């Protein structure tokens, strides 16, 4: 899904998204306390949420879900150095998770430490090249760094803008718009004011690992053909052909409208001088006659970026064509 969640062409009002989505595909048995804490946080009762999460951690101090949530709560409570400590430790214990890097970046950015924020976000993307939130945040951070550089170029005092950024972050600390089925709403004091934030998000954090099924040999060949065709159209920078591989009800990565998503995809594909997408060791899992999922290792190379990551496409058969319904990072 690389690039499809890439930075949007326009800045999103300077808002950095604080990611509060949970991040385990391999489900971890989650204590009720964590779930309760999430609900309390959503309801704006951050102190109670903290108590719950501490309780969960007392029972299982290593539990990453609870640690992450604690980091989020502390961030919202403005206890930045404690939050930084938690998220930093999480990046050390789980270096492949993008979210702790992302949240570190949000905190750094709110402190005006855009270089640090940038490093964290770049790490986040390194772990998950498809991670939409990190891309959006990184876009914002690059723009802030650019504005600082322009400030120095033109001898303009950039300190005012830094202060404004910080304020706007606090005010607009909204949850991530259901980037993944696993997303959990972030509650912030101001979230209630934002109409978007009122939309209930999926509450269960983890996606249950899908049991691999035996693929039907003939059908899986068609599925693979479709996936190869998709990669070829992408490599040829044939945006229309590429978009033609997506089902009508394709689940856009950040919950944006199909139109917005297509527009941003066309821009991204158009912006690259060259693209090559290679697919290695694809594994097809049939989920019935009309549904399949394909996992593979994707190598994306453009004049701007090279990335390797695992990807899973969920496909549906519509009018005898296999179309992409959902695109996921990882297995």
């Amino acid at each position, binding site marked *: 899904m690389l690039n499809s969640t890439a*930075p949007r*062409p326009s800045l999103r009002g300077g808002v950095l998204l604080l990611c509060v989505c949970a991040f385990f595909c391999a489900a971890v048995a989650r204590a009720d306390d964590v779930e309760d804490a999430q609900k309390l946080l959503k309801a704006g009762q951050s102190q109670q949420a903290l108590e719950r999460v501490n309780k969960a951690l007392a029972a299982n101090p290593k539990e990453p879900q609870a640690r992450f949530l604690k980091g989020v709560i502390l961030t919202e409570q403005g206890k930045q150095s404690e939050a930084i400590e938690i998220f930093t430790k999480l990046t050390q214990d789980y270096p492949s998770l993008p979210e702790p890097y992302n949240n570190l970046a949000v905190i750094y950015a709110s402190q005006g430490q855009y270089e640090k924020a940038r490093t964290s976000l770049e790490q986040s993307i390194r772990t998950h090249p498809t991670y939409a939130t990190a891309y959006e945040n990184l876009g914002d951070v690059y*723009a802030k760094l*650019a*504005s600082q550089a322009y400030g120095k*170029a*033109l001898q*303009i005092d950039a300190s005012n803008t830094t202060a404004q950024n910080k304020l706007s972050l606090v005010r607009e600390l909204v949850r991530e718009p259901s980037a993944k089925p696993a997303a959990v709403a972030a509650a912030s004091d101001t979230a209630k004011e934002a109409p978007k934030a009122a939309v209930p998000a999926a509450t269960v954090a983890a996606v249950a690992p899908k049991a691999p099924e035996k693929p039907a040999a003939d059908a899986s060949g068609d599925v693979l053909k479709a996936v190869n065709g998709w990669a070829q159209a992408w490599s040829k920078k044939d945006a229309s052909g590429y978009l033609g591989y997506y089902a009508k009800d394709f689940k856009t990565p950040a919950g944006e409208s199909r139109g917005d998503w297509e527009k941003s995809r066309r821009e991204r594909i158009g*912006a690259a001088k060259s693209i090559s997408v290679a697919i290695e060791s694809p594994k097809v899992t049939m989920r019935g006659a009309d549904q399949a999922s394909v996992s593979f290792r994707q190598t994306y190379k453009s004049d701007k970026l090279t990335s390797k990551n695992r990807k899973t496409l969920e496909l549906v058969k519509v009018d005898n064509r296999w179309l992409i319904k959902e695109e996921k990072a990882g297995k």
Partner: protein
Amino acid sequence: MKRLALLLLALFSLSAAASTPEDRLSSVFQAIEANQPDVALKRVDSLIADYPNFRLAYLVRGDLLLARARPLETFGNVLKTVPEGRVADLREEALARLRAQRQRPADDRLPRYVLQLNKDQKNALVVDARRSRLYVYANEGGTPKLIADYYVTIGKNGIEKTREGDQKTPVGVYHVTANLPRKKLTDFYGAGAFPISYPNEWDRRQGRSGHGIWLHGVPSNVYSRAPRASDGCIVLANPDLESVSQRLQIGLTPVIIADEVEWVDRSALETERAGLAAEIEHWRADWQSRDSTRYLAHYSQRFSSGKENLAAWSAHKRKVNASKSWIKVNLGRVAMLRYPHESDVVVVTFDQDYKSNGLSNVMKKRQYWMKEDGRWKILYEGAA
């Protein structure tokens, strides 16, 4: 293998150390053109680390970062809230620097102005105002050889200074007249200042006024200034001024300021030089011959010594020559510098060793020669 790598590394770091901030800026743009934005960003970051006052480098950095966030609309994609002039200044500086890097004069092309340097003049400076560039020439047996060139700032209102306060840089043939060391100056002048001889005899004759045209450095909080930002002075980055100042000889080093330098082949320059040198030799021989008519035929109808016109000068010279039974004139250390932006005016300076019955003297002299109807004539003559 490892040794080779180390050697290469050492060589690379040597060359990196030798490259100027401008070379490095140019390599940033090369990386951008080669579609390597990451390399470009690394290069500009290291440039900024070494030259934290180089504002232009920050502008490029801003663009490189912003390009990652959204498509750029222009070079120096600063928000519209910033006064356009400030960005425009940096854009122009970038253009001037890049153009100079990419359009270096070929080895056999020389500025038309430096016809001949005298043996004591180690260097000559030539300024191309339009290109915001100062070229440093070394004197190699009387002819110039380019050894360095630098970005310079000129007057806010451009060139062709005519009056006091017009914030323009004069066009003409000058020389450095003094060395004002850093400690005697405010920070505004940076690493030092070298006044030049504006207004010269030609400027006065044209009625041009003003004074205090200097070569100088920049304040400590900047690396360089916009292409057009001074009150008429020629401004260099402090490290550049320091390099140039090593080569300046007070009272000797010519500073020729042109609107746009005229470049000619070495052979064409030599032809012009030889033609004028022959005329000067005729003038000397005719003076020595005491044939006043032939001697005075070298002077233009428009001649003026500043005090005397041609009639007064002729009467005086005829009288003096007639009173002599012998005259010997020797010229030494002759320099010939063509005046930019004028048709065929050359400033000639020399040591004049005059001996006669009754009077002998040695003096430094300056003449302005002008080609009139295909013949070189003297427009001005006086002590230098």
